């Protein structure tokens, strides 16, 4: 197990190195610089700025410096937020984004799995059709439209929740729902089809032949096996929630890392863009690793040994 994890961490480091490299050169290749903005900056000042941020040195020096500072978990100063480092931005924005992401992950998984199971157990009955209509809507409506719909009905018309901002738990509900809608619908469909397949398996018939009730069969035999594809989906799901948060945080005016990221892109805030990209990459790589480990716990046939098959 330990060997497996350390091996995976090594691979992660390698992927990270690639990501850092690619981001670095992509940013360089992009036209325009952080100071070539709409407002004209006098040439002397621009020269000074370039010197201050080290932009006048040859690219290989810049690249190497960047690698070293990233290894020291130092993403450098922000180009646009005066007096703030990228680390400051991350430390400040990430907890907010993390809370939002976890909340929507929780909503997406719990309600999605529940809907999928109800639909499968009532295959071709009205509960099944209702859940699937719901799921199709959730998948086909983009999150920013979902956000506006939720804001209009639940906040403006019914007044149950605040329209925007990030001040209390109440404020978190609508953005989390908007962010969760699409993954939730996807999970519902995934769970349903996986559950239908599992219910047709021989071992379900064995369980029935033992005298177990439908409820016992579902809880003890079906769900655990049906949940496996959902667990596999958790990796891409985290990525989806992460990228979804860019838009949602902007719409609801949430001071998270996502809105900082979007702002930094419009501002050509190079260090912030690169820093946040690297940070997000680490997050995603970690979540994929966690998913794989979780999978190994749920499915005993998967051995997390160092590559070789079990017995």
């Amino acid at each position, binding site marked *: 197990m330990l060997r497996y994890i350390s091996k995976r961490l090594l691979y992660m480091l390698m992927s990270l190195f690639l990501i850092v490299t690619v981001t670095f050169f992509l940013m360089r290749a992009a036209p325009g610089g952080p100071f070539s903005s709409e407002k004209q900056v006098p040439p002397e000042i621009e020269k000074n700025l370039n010197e201050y941020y080290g932009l006048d040195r040859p690219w290989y020096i810049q690249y190497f410096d960047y690698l070293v500072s990233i290894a020291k978990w130092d993403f450098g100063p922000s180009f646009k937020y005066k007096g703030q480092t990228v680390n400051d931005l991350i430390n400040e924005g990430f907890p907010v984004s993390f809370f939002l992401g976890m909340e929507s992950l929780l909503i997406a998984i719990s309600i999605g799995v529940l809907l999928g199971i109800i639909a499968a157990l009532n295959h071709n009955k009205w509960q099944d059709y209702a859940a699937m209509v719901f799921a199709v809507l959730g998948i086909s409506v983009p999150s920013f439209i979902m956000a506006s719909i939720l804001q209009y009905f639940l906040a403006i018309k019914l007044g149950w929740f605040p329209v925007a901002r990030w001040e209390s738990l109440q404020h978190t509900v609508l953005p989390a729902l908007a962010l969760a809608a699409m993954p939730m619908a996807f999970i519902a469909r995934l769970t349903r089809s996986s559950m239908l397949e599992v219910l047709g398996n021989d071992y379900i018939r064995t369980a029935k*032949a033992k*005298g177990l*009730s439908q409820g016992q069969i579902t809880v003890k035999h079906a769900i655990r096996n049906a949940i496996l594809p959902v667990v596999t989906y958790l990796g891409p799901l985290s990525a989806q929630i992460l990228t979804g948060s860019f838009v949602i945080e902007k719409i609801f005016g949430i001071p998270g890392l996502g809105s900082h990221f979007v702002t930094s892109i419009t501002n050509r805030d190079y260090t912030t863009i690169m820093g946040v990209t690297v940070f997000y990459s680490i997050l995603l790589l970690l979540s994929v690793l966690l998913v794989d480990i979780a999978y190994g716990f749920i499915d005993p046939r998967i051995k997390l040994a160092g590559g070789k098959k079990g017995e």
Partner: protein
Amino acid sequence: MGKLLEVKNLEVSFQTYGGEVQAVRGVSFYLNKGETLAIVGESGSGKSVTSQTIMRLIPTPPGKIKNGQILFDGEDLVKKTDKEMEQIRGRDIGMIFQDPMTSLNPTMKVGHQIMEVIMKHQKLPKSAAKERAIELLRLVGIPMPEKRVNQYPHEFSGGMRQRAMIAIALASNPKLLIADEPTTALDVTIQAQILELMKDIQKKTGTAIIFITHDLGVVANVADRVAVMYAGKIVEMGTVDEIFYDPRHPYTWGLLASMPSLDSDDKAELASIPGSPPDLTNPPKGDAFAPRNPYAMKIDFEMEPPLFQISDTHYAATWLLHPDAPKVEPPEAVKRRLRKLSTNYPQPIIVRESE
């Protein structure tokens, strides 16, 4: 000896897009306490549907019990509610399925899968159930049961899994064990071991067994009586001796002739019955076996044969037993083994008129 199970005129159909598949068309048989009945027949003859209907495991819909009774200990299982059936399944009737590779839950420890039955029906606490599970694994001949009880199915070989399935089926000392082709998916040597095990277990526990197979070869070894099924009906039924040494139905002849016999090496004679079973969406008029039957007479294509009784225990449904039928010789492979049985009636008597 009392009757444990009596199936009377059972009819089971499936509603499909192609129409109604009449999988079981009026099956009747009985089983005494502690006895082993083999049900043999080619694939598709309705053996699995019959046995799963006894357990009420047929998915409904598309399946439907159209007619008949299943008297188990005098109570009709057809009339039981689902809740009542839960008390009978696993406790009074245990079942073993054909494919041990898919019949166990891959994500649950084998021991736990055995314990479930014990905890459900015996209401034992967990620790006692585990003790019993280990004991059962030992009973079915699994070495190191204390270790095996904590393993997952993928750590078991095919034969070991089938032993574990038998342990599950036996967990609460059922009065009836239904084994649906328990050895078909296994190697020949493992097959023999599993058959030995089942015989051994019956001696120890006295449970009655319905043993389903498409291979007459294994029947002589395990069964007391044999029912031969074709196209959803039982065409012949009798003691092992009656079926092997005095068979009357041409379908039974065909099965016997295609069985490799131990006392002769004439592989050339080995031939399976030509043709294939009829489509049960539109079962043919008359005797369903007629199109494949070299002895078929005109009446076989028009009227279903009546059921004849040849001895107290021997029944066959074929026009060949009718007093007016011409005398025919069974195939050579069958003729060789024929014996005169002293228990036979002087003449076969009609017990059910043709329809």
